[in-house]
């Protein structure tokens, strides 16, 4: 009779192993959800309110956790520093590097005088780590001065934001300014450009997850659809424009799971109503 006992014990072991695996899965899932909460809270922090304009940002990770990043930093001189970025890769590894990038931005934002200086300092701070981790980050960094309407920007390998002219209702990319991604080369000195923004002008920052969002047929959302959506909605508030773009993407993708995170930041000039 006892001949069958070992078989029964083996079965028990299989069940035990399965329970251990189930518990590990649950623990991992719980930790991923906690990590997601941390990331979403850091991303969706306080949006600055200031006289002379309005800003908003939103990010939709393709997986539970994403590698896109945006941030606002109100400087003591009254300017608003904005950063939008995309970390190489996806999921948890990209999220860890996103936190590293956020930390570097927050540390150097107040002690650097311009967007180009911010990127130069960030590359200085992050280069060794990114090189060791075989990764890189593309970023666009910009300052908006609500008092003068001057918008200054620099790029570290990130595509340029769209500029929507509130007067003649045209959309174009901001004038080109070049710069290599953070982690690409050491000792980089970034360049910057400035433009004068006028009443109702909009700057639309975004990551490639928007224009590369795919529907079930594998077609991409593309820049043309984004431009059309912005033209149809540019007279609204930044919150309404942001929702219109997100709705348009969702209508196009029809619930198809996306490969890349979707992130946008809007800056709209409204200086007249605030007396500038």
């Amino acid at each position, binding site marked *: 009779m006892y001949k069958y006992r070992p078989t029964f014990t083996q079965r028990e072991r299989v069940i035990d192993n399965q329970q251990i695996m189930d518990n590990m899965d649950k623990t991992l899932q719980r930790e991923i959800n906690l990590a997601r909460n941390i990331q979403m809270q850091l991303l969706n922090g306080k949006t600055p309110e200031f006289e002379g304009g309005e800003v908003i940002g939103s990010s939709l990770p393709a997986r539970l956790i994403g590698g896109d990043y945006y941030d606002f930093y109100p400087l003591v001189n009254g300017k608003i520093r904005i950063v939008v970025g995309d970390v190489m*890769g*996806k999921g948890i590894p990209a999220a860890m590097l996103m936190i590293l990038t956020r930390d570097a931005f927050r540390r150097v934002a107040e002690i650097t005088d311009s967007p180009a200086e911010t990127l130069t300092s960030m590359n200085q701070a992050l280069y060794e780590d990114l*090189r060791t981790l075989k990764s890189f980050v593309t970023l666009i960094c910009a300052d908006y001065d609500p008092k003068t309407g001057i918008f200054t920007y620099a790029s570290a390998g990130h595509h340029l934001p769209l500029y929507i002219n509130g007067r003649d209702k045209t959309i174009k990319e901001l004038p080109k300014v070049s710069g290599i991604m953070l982690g690409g080369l050491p000792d980089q000195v970034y360049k910057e450009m400035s433009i004068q923004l006028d009443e109702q002008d909009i700057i639309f920052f975004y990551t490639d997850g928007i224009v590369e969002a795919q529907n079930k047929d594998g077609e991409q959302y593309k820049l043309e659809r984004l431009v059309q959506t912005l033209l149809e909605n540019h007279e609204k508030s930044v919150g309404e424009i942001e929702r219109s773009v997100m709705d348009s993407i969702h209508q196009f993708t029809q619930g198809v799971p996306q490969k890349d995170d979707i992130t946008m930041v809007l800056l709209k000039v409204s200086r007249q109503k605030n007396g500038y």
Partner: protein
Amino acid sequence: MSLTVNKKVKGKTLILKVKGVLDISTVHVIASYLKEIDHIETLIFDLSDLELIDSTGIGTILNAIYLSQEKHISN
């Protein structure tokens, strides 16, 4: 969505012709070829048949450049 790599060796030159999609799901294929670059002097990536590359794919090409620099291989 797949990646195929056609490998050619001409003397001390290794040519990797990459076709298809170079993204997070396929970069390991390139990594395996980069283990074989110890005895070459020039590394060439032919990306003319590449259909799509994501940031992880760009990172892999960058790493190939870094690796080549460490091993004094031109690219």
